């Protein structure tokens, strides 16, 4: 039985009694372009608890980066437009704050690290200068004090010979070291939430592991919430507590990592899991998901995944009100601790 009205935002983790750090409620973001309106984010909602690592999993073009940037408030407002939703941080809706108040949240409250550290760091200033900026801008520290704190931070993120390297420039560091510099910048003011947008995609596998370990350790030390945006299933499996799968700008499944990965409740997630090459199954064929992700300017009607879904029910096969090409499935509680946006999740799960 599906419902037209979205289920109330019941916490799939069952709630521990502590208030969530972050609550995103029905966030929608559009882009007005010459080619038309692009619906990048179409109503996503989730919460993040202290100490929790939430992975937002999706292919490119799913809107995951845009949603993160909307939370940070760094979208270019034309052409982007946040058309509705609330972003509750520490009890306040960030979208109702004025520019200056929003700015003060960035850095001390919520901070973000990006995929390509080489282009994300300013090439003409030393890393010490850029890390120190956090202290000078937000805490009014002097240049010397800021630099001292920068060296401390570089130590903390395990950059060797920090004191000597504080005056070096980004291009003088290796990829993994640069990413650590970005992490140092982001945790400088002990933020409550760290958003990591594809932090390891540009790195070698061994370096990836080191950086993810560092992030987990820092999280344990500080109890901050970590939002990990990625398309890498392996990383999600290793590091995240819960996962939200995004497709066409919406969350289509949510739950704990173990649950979702072992028993997906939505055909898209099913497809993702089967497309991972299994070392044991050598000699078999790879199983990709048929078709292409949708053009966000032209999202298919009904369930956006239906053109590619092998379980879809259209027309006469469909149950009333659950025609995959016509009726859009809302994110709903399927079993305790799991939400999915599919008319036939029970079948997928096998309950």
């Amino acid at each position: 039985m599906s419902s037209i009205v979205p289920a109330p935002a019941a916490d799939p983790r069952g709630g521990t009694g502590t208030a969530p750090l972050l609550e995103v409620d029905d966030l929608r973001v559009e882009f007005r372009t010459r080619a038309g309106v692009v619906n990048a984010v179409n109503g996503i909602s989730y919460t993040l608890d202290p100490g929790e690592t939430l992975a937002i999993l999706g292919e490119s073009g799913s809107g995951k980066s845009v949603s993160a940037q909307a939370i940070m408030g760094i979208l270019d407002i034309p052409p982007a437009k946040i058309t509705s939703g609330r972003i509750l941080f520490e009890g306040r809706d960030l979208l109702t704050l004025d520019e200056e108040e929003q700015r003060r949240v960035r850095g001390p409250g919520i901070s973000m690290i990006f995929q390509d550290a080489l282009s994300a760091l300013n090439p003409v200033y030393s890393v010490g200068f850029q890390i120190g900026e956090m202290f000078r801008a937000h805490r009014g520290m002097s240049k010397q004090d800021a630099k001292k704190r920068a060296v401390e931070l570089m130590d903390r993120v395990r950059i060797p010979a920090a004191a000597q390297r504080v005056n070096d420039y980004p291009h003088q560091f290796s990829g993994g070291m640069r990413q650590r510099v970005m992490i140092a910048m982001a945790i400088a003011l002990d933020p409550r939430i760290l958003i990591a947008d594809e932090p390891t995609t540009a790195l070698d596998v061994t370096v990836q592991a080191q950086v993810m370990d560092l992030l987990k350790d820092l999280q344990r030390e500080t109890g901050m919430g970590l939002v990990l945006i990625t398309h890498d299933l392996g990383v999600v499996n290793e590091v995240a507590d819960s996962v939200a799968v995004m497709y066409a700008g919406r969350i289509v499944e949510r739950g704990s990592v173990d649950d979702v990965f072992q028993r997906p409740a939505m055909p898209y997630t099913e497809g993702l899991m089967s497309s991972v090459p299994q070392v044991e199954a050598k000699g078999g064929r790879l199983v990709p998901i048929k078709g292409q992700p949708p053009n966000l300017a032209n999202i298919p009607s009904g369930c956006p995944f239906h053109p590619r879904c092998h379980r879809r029910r259209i027309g006469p096969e469909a149950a009333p009100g659950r025609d995959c090409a016509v009726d859009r499935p809302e994110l709903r509680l399927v079993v305790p601790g799991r939400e999915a946006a599919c008319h036939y999740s029970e079948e997928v799960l096998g309950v």
Partner: protein
Amino acid sequence: MTDPQQQVDLRHDEVQAGTTTVLGEPSVDVTDARQNSLWSDAWAQLRRSVIFWTGAVLCVLFLAMALFPSLFARGVDPRDCDLTNSKGTPSSAHWLGFDQQGCDYLANVVYGARNSLLIGVLGVLGVLILGVVVGAIAGFYGRAIDSILSRVTDIFYALPLTLGAIVLLRVGPSTDIPVINTRGPGAVAIALALFGWMTAMRLVRSQVIAVKSSDYVAAARAMGASDYRILVRHILPNAVAPVLVYATITIGVLIAAEATLTFLGVGLQPPAISWGLQIANGQSLLRTAPHLVLFPSIILTFTVMAFILMGDALRDALDPRQRS
């Protein structure tokens, strides 16, 4: 992530979100018919560009003036002069009046287009030949050859266009070298090309270097294609876009340069008809007969503008980042 659709989506998502995309290296081989979207997109954008059409119209007018001057001059002979008409002001019969010699000025200004066109086109041809050849060789073979050729380019760079051309044209007439020792359009074109090829060389060289290490070149090499074939068939077509823009704008620049050189006295000589000469001759009469300087100036400006506008429009059309 090689699916074209995925790439489009990724670019779409990221570009709209305000990040930059790394569109530096051409990962798309334009000689592959399926992928020549660069040129068809460019043309689609050019067609809609007011700047392009303004420039194109002016350019067509200028070309017509140069190729069929008698039409624009209303059949008057520019050298049919009568001193009694000296410095006559514009009238309905003689739209631009007369110059000091009493020659019909409309005819003279119109006929001046021919030399400018000749020099502009020949000059740019020279620039392209020198620039493309030197740049392609330097970029393709690299290392020692590149070092030497780049140093040579640096040396020529040290002589700015106008200054180098002044010296060459000044000593030219007394040398025994065929075209250079005349004081004709050929000499001016050669002088301009000789001191104007360097930027084209650098453009071609950097494009060749960027394209040289791409996959389709490696594929061609793996199939045993010769250096020459790789260079000409695979690398140069992909390297040509910025050079095309530069060439268009340079025609305008060289036309202006010729007028300047002629004005200074080292370019064309009477009895040649050139806007530079007309401006030089009218200089002392600016107060009393300003039309002598003004009319060739206006035509010169519009001619130069034609090529600069077209070049600008072409640059915008070919630049993937400008298309938003």
